């Protein structure tokens, strides 16, 4: 089965962030980027499905030049080919604009896919919605927060496990092709081998713009979105919290004292 995996490149969640000059996003200069966490799990799940069914993975990503690093990594991990929606017109899109553009790129592939996998939520804007929009635009069934996929009926269906609230999972059958938005923790993602990294250099990366997808530039990216970010800010830090200063030993003693005499919980 051929598997499409959509990944997003996002800022390293541990990185120190600054607001950029126009105040509408974080300053990306010197900011380390990585493949979005749940997308890494989606890629691993895609590779496993392709390996088990004798297929291949094509990885899709939308974003600027830096996204090539994420695509190279996906190729090093085992994807056969990469498709990069690289035109600047695609950037700044909401989940609807981005999802529709990705769906158009998936549909453009002539050999077709048995399943499209995405991560469940991006670690930057966190709409949690792109995969469902891809499904809507393709007219395929979908599921979000997927914690298990078993391909059944020779690729005609899948038994899917979806995470629910309060520690329960729902298990259901979904006809394929479908779009599955994968939750972090579904598997243990592999590491790239040296051989994989070398091979990735020779694998194809296709760059696409709106015209290649038959899309009006006004329907993609920021122009095609219903949302506009006015500003981004840090919430007031430590609001309400008493910050305890000093080296580890001093702070620890001061904290215990406060927990005993002030909060009275020890």
């Amino acid at each position, binding site marked *: 089965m051929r598997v499409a995996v959509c990944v997003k490149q996002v*800022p390293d*969640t*541990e990185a*120190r*962030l600054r607001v950029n000059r126009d105040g509408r996003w974080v300053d990306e200069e010197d900011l380390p980027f990585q493949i979005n966490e749940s997308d890494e799990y989606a890629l691993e799940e895609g590779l496993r499905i392709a390996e088990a069914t004798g297929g291949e993975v094509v990885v899709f990503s939308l974003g600027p030049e830096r996204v090539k690093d994420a695509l190279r990594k996906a190729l090093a991990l085992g994807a056969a080919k990469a498709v990069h929606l690289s035109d600047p017109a695609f950037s700044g899109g909401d*989940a*609807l604009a981005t999802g*529709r553009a990705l769906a158009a790129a998936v549909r453009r592939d002539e050999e077709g896919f048995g399943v499209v996998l995405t991560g469940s939520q991006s*670690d930057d*804007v966190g709409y*949690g*919605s792109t*995969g*469902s*929009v891809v*499904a*809507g635009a393709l007219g395929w069934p*979908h*599921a*979000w*927060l997927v*914690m298990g996929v078993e391909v059944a009926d020779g690729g005609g269906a899948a038994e899917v496990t979806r*995470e*629910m*609230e*309060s*520690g*329960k*999972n729902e*298990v*259901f*059958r*979904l006809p394929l092709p479908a779009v599955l938005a994968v939750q*972090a*923790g579904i598997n243990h993602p592999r590491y790239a081998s040296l051989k994989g990294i070398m091979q990735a250099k020779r694998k194809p990366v296709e760059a696409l713009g709106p015209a290649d997808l038959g899309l009006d530039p006004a329907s993609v990216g920021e122009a095609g979105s*219903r*949302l*506009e970010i006015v*500003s*981004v*800010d840090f*919430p*007031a*830090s*430590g609001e309400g*919290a*008493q*910050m305890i200063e000093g080296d*580890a*030993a001093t*702070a*620890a003693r001061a*904290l*215990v*004292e406060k*927990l*005993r005499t002030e*909060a009275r*919980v*020890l």
Partner: protein
Amino acid sequence: MAKTWIVLQQREGRISRISWEAIAAGQRLAGELSGGKAEAVLLGSGVGELAREVAVADLAAVHVADHEALAGYTPGAYVGALASAIRDAAPDFVVFPHTYQTVDYFARLAHEAGAGLLPEVTGFERGDGGLVFRRPILGGKLVARVRVKGEGPVLVSVQSGAFSADSAARGGSAEVRELPVDGAAVRADREILRVEDAGGDQVDLTKAEVIVAVGRGVGGEDKLGPIRELAAALGAEIAASRPVVDNGWLERDRQIGSSGQTVAPKLYLAAGISGAIQHVVGMKGSGVVVAINKDPGAPIFNLADYGIVGDLHEVVPALTEAVKEAKGDG
């Protein structure tokens, strides 16, 4: 006149608390838009009694889509029932509780209904050129202010806890109306086989009085020793945020948060936990919260009562010593 809808979530014959939070948000939104009243939408099978329960809220109407295909949740049936209703009535905003179920289907609904989509809102206010909505980005490290542009309805989900359920205005007697359902459009698109426990609930953290919770910042399973010693000194249970469990450093039944357990101990000590909302919803009811994190910008400090900025691998052993000393004195 501007129109605001609120789509309620019900499970096993009950309106969830977060649906009442969505009612509160929708009432405020309707007030901001036109000074009018919001309208609620309830989907299900045989939910007339529930509709009357909702009708005590101060609403213009409760629309009920009652159909046997809506007895259980599937995205196909829910999108089928709501897409045409939204196209026909063209509300300006449709408010949803931000739950796993909502996120599973409402992006697809937005696509099918030709609507915009604004997930996980924590608040809104009137700004230059209209309403400005707040939502967390980058794991809650920053807050984005977002404006809606273009024509047509917008689907908005409101984050758990962002609006108080108790603030929902009651004392109304909203008219309960039937929302026509096109049986051909309302089709289950998945065949539900079963519901099972995600990771077994052998460890019941809800009864613990003291919890020491670790996050990604602990760095590995081999580094949990000092955490266990602190927990032992405090007589605490050990718990974790999701990344720790995903990495296999602790068992899934010790996970706190939206996909794990919800706890409210007397003392919650969070070490190396940044404080993403998915974790916070599982512990915000705790009595006293202590946060240790090397990042002074970690959102957990906005929630904590006491905070120490530092390396948990230094602070935690020091804390264990300090607790032992204090208990020895006592």
